């Protein structure tokens, strides 16, 4: 999209680094009350499940005891086994419920985040949009959200159980001897330290990884869009190499993270297993030190209890090892999502403009504009007025600020100095939607969407309750698209593939023009929209426009003198400044640049006009 001129793209310093960690916590804010309730339900059932799961080893011990003590009838064992199975069944039911709510909640969260992100991007003006690349926004809307969703799912399934198990385990351990508690604390301190170090190491890697995903999207997208040129220049290798650079970067980050994570699991199990052995060895020392049988027995039973509760804590650790590898990437993704969500879209105005007594008047008062980060002004001190029904044309060399000027009318960007007024109201005060309703905009490059010709023409909303088939037919006629549309098998309902790949340049442009006309706006803006048309179509189209939309103000950027010479006012732009203003005849006399442009296109006698 040619939305900015002349200046190199600015790379904002995105300060996500410091926010990575809190990203996941912030995401919680986006849960609705109902989902929080669901999370609580999950928690409640997790407590129940842990309780039931704790009973199982209890029964296991009882059964072992029954088996070990001769003389017990099999029926006792069967009974104990039956209870054990009941517990297992209950636990299964709990998991069923947990899974149900966890999957629903995490999927709902991701759906909401995706929708919020999409909505937010929809609210962005060009200024905010250009802060992120389209490729990055696409990654954020798909890949990043998937990371968060998967983490949320496993988080609810496993992470929630960690505090339950930990509390249970710690309470159990607290009662036993100091030596054991110390051993357990050291082991867990060790495990936690390892986890913390791993996370610290991998977080920046994961951040890099998501940036490489952006890069991958970008390179693929660009070679897809430019596929004709790529092939024409036999430049496939060039782009494959470029892709490989991103691919390789991603792979290295991927390997680095996974390898760092590979340390975590084994170290954790080493810690947890080690502490079991430590408990036994300590137990052995204490028992041999106790001397008396009674005291020794007490120590022994303490040891058994201890190892049982340690097993609980290990379970908690096991869950952590399963969830933690996902966490850093999810945290980075969450931060990237939040970065977009927290980007303030320009504040919307309040004016609807329905009560205005003017319709379609555009006025620039001393407007200057500079692209963010650019060295110089793209527009300087521009003043003019286009009254209702007038045609104002802009001409000037490539990069002279024509498109930029139009972008200010639509508030894609905002003037740095001066005011852009529509119907005597500053465009900043309009509700964006109300402002858009006044305008029909045709960009330089036709933008078409998958769908039909009809759906592309009746695109969007104009605040007047949609478009009738008659509106569409009228627009098709004015845009001189009737001739080719009628030749298509499906007529107005003919399919359009992505970006209108099945239409010629001029056909795409005429559909774009029909789309603008269909809105029946107060102001029509043509950003060099006629260049792709042959002269005949161009002329006929403008004739139709003149006849059928005489009350509509028209702002036209064009290269061809023929397209604009009958305009009420022609503004010649040069280096962002107005170099001349007037009618064709006036400018021929007064403006050197205009005369040069005209001379390059018109014959002698026409110039003499």
């Amino acid at each position, binding site marked *: 999209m040619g939305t900015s001129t002349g200046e190199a793209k600015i790379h904002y310093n995105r300060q996500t680094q410091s926010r990575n960690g809190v990203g996941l916590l912030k995401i919680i804010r986006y849960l609705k009350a109902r989902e929080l309730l669901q999370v609580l339900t999950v928690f409640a059932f997790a407590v129940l499940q842990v309780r039931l799961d704790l009973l199982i080893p209890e029964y296991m011990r009882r059964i072992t005891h029954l088996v070990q003590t001769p003389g017990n009838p099999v029926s006792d064992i069967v009974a104990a086994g039956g209870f054990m199975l009941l517990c297992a069944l209950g636990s299964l039911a709990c998991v069923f419920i947990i899974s149900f709510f966890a999957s629903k909640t995490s999927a709902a969260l991701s759906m909401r985040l995706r929708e919020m992100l999409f909505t937010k991007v929809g609210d962005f003006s060009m200024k905010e949009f250009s802060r992120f690349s389209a490729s990055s926004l696409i990654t954020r809307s*798909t890949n990043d959200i998937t990371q968060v969703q998967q983490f949320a799912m496993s988080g609810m399934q496993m992470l929630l159980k960690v505090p339950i198990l930990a509390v249970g385990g710690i309470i159990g351990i607290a009662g036993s001897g100091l030596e054991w508690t110390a051993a357990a604390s050291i082991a867990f301190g060790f495990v936690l330290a390892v986890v913390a170090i791993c996370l610290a190491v991998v977080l920046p890697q994961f951040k890099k990884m998501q940036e490489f995903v952006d890069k991958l999207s970008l390179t693929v997208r660009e070679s897809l869009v430019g596929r004709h040129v790529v092939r024409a220049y036999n430049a496939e290798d060039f782009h494959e190499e470029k892709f490989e650079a991103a691919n390789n970067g991603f792979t290295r980050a991927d390997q680095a993270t996974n390898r760092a*994570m590979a340390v975590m699991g*084994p170290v954790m199990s080493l810690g947890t297993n080690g502490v079991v052995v430590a408990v036994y060895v300590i137990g052995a020392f204490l028992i041999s030190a106790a001397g008396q049988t009674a005291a020794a027995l007490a120590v022994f039973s303490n040891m058994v209890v201890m190892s049982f509760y340690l097993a609980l804590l290990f379970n908690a650790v096991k869950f952590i090892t399963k969830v933690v590898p996902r966490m850093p990437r999810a945290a980075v993704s969450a931060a990237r999502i939040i970065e977009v969500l927290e980007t303030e879209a320009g504040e919307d105005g309040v004016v609807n403009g329905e009560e205005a007594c003017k319709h379609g008047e555009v006025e620039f008062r001393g407007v200057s504009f500079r692209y963010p980060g650019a060295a110089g002004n793209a527009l300087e001190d521009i003043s003019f007025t286009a009254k209702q029904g007038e045609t104002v044309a802009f001409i000037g060399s*490539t990069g002279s600020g*024509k498109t930029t000027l139009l972008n200010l009318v639509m508030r894609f960007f905002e003037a740095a100095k001066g005011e852009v007024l529509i119907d005597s109201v500053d465009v900043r005060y309009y509700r964006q939607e109300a402002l858009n309703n006044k305008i029909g905009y045709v960009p330089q490059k036709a933008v078409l969407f*998958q769908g039909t010709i009809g759906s592309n023409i009746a695109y*969007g909303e104009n605040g007047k309750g949609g478009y009738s088939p008659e509106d569409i037919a009228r627009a098709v006629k004015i845009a001189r698209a009737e001739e080719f549309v009628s030749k298509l098998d499906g007529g107005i309902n003919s399919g359009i593939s992505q970006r209108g790949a*099945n239409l010629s340049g001029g056909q795409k442009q005429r559909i774009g023009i029909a789309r603008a006309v269909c809105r029946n706006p107060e102001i029509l803006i043509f950003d060099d929209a006629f260049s792709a048309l042959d002269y005949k179509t161009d002329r006929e189209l403008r004739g139709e426009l003149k006849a059928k939309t005489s009350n509509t103000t028209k702002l036209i950027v064009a290269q*061809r003198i023929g397209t604009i010479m009958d305009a009420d006012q022609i503004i010649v732009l040069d280096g962002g400044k107005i170099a001349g203003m007037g009618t064709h005849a006036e400018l021929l006399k007064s403006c050197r640049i205009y005369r040069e442009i005209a001379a390059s*296109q018109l014959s002698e006698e026409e110039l003499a006009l």
Partner: protein
Amino acid sequence: MSEHNSDKRLKGASMGTNHFAGVAEDVGGYGETWRKLAAHCKKHLPLIVFALILAVAGSILQILVPGRLQALTDIIQEGIAGGLDMDAVISVAVVLGVIFACTALLSFLQSYTLAGATAQISENLRSQISRKINKLPLKYFGRVSLGNVMSHITNDVDTVGQALNQNIGTLMSASALFIGSLGMMLWSNWIMALTAIFASAIGFLSSKAVLSHSKKFFKAQQNGLGAIGGHVEEVYSGHSVVKAYNGTKAAKEAFAELNGRLYAATWKAQFVSGFITPLMQFSGTLAYVSVVVVGAALVMRGQISFGLIVAFIMYVNQFTQGLTHIAETFPGIQSTTAASERVFEILDEDELSDESHKTQRLSSVRGEVTFKNLSFGYDKDKTIIHDFSAEVKPGQKIAIVGPTGAGKTTLVNLLMRFYEPDGGEICIDGVPISQATRGDVHSQFSMVLQDAWLFEGTVRENIAYKNKGATDEKIAEVCTAIGLHSFIASLPNGYDTVLNDEAALSEGQKQLVTIARAMIHAAPMLILDEATSSVDTRTEALIQGAMDMLMEGRTSFVIAHRLSTIKNADLIVVLKDGNIVESGVHGELLLQNGPYAELHRSQFELPARPA
């Protein structure tokens, strides 16, 4: 009214998403997909086998643990009454410590190896897709959305990679544990072993039943991501129009529809997969209870000692643990399968015909181009070019004019072999281009297209492009000739300023860059398809001069609406509906007073003055 409107949008948005429809039928095909995936992993087989060996070794060590722990307990228990054998305790503890250390080391090495292998497998898949994109016929891109293709690379391969990494290792060690403990069980007592197997089979079969439903959800999830990607890409690409037309609401509605479907697929896939582990745990408990009950009965009958039961219980624990871990990997394996299927969907697409056998070379081309009875249509039943014939002599400048949609760009597409004609042929120096390789044909032409396309890279890279030998002086010279140099010099980093596809330059400036690119390329022939449509006419006149120099002695094809650019052409071909309606030189054609004369008049005809 607006309903009808949004309806259309929805229909439009979901055109690229018809994958959804095919979801239900697509449940089978595991073997096929995994065979292909395995073929892709071939290069990494040694690493994977190495990891497998580590996994087996680790599992064997793990099987030793319960026995040692039991021994430790026994020693301590015996020592309660006094005379605790501390030496024995220490020695067992040391053995355990060594085992744990070895297990940790093995498991680390295994994960480390696999992390490397799976990352490379994913890298390889991404490369393949990226290369595939260049081998697909351009027609392919007419029916898929770009976002969906991107989703193959970012989302699908990512899923494959993550799932492989997380599951292959677990699957390996769990299988080893499972087989090991199974062997121990069978060796100890076959009756109890069968009991355990039977009991856990129930869990295993019910998991399988659950899983038979879940794959379609995983596939729907990946398809849903692709569809969302497609829609999002389209809307973000057309951001300015979407905004200006208040199309955000309709775009959101279409998005919400896709998002809702993705939600449904996602939660179902997650729910089902979250259910497998507990199901297996339950069947583990079931196996345990069954074994104990059967074992107790056997003890009662005096067939076995209870010591055997105690040992057996440990084996059952490991057995069910192995089984549970195996089952845990199933959802991951399923999502890998689903995502791989999508990856292979694009990798298996028919490629452009292989041309490596072609020996015909177009070398030192003079530039004679013959079109013989060419006919072509993008759809087979809709012919756009009918029986087009023309002869172009070396060095001539051929202008193709005509109303929009007449087939001008289509002719270029055929000349460049972007598409193959349905009938007739094009020859360069008498050689049918179908006999030369595409690359060979392409390298005969410098080309500037209607849509100026830049890639992310510096101005210099964008201009030099393939031509690595282009010197800075040469680039500056070309840019000066077309009036681009002073603008580039004004950029913050001059020729090193990074441009990209999104913004940075005005359309006209982008066109100038692509013209500079074509001029640097300097192939024997030239194609200009509306190359200066967004450039102002003064600059165009400048370019014209530079171009004329470039075209000197080069056959060139020019499509332009501004007839001033083609007045001096050696041959002007007027196209209408894919037919030549007129051809000749400017003067002749004006005299004939036919369609060309009409076109010519139209550009100078002054519009009626308002009354």
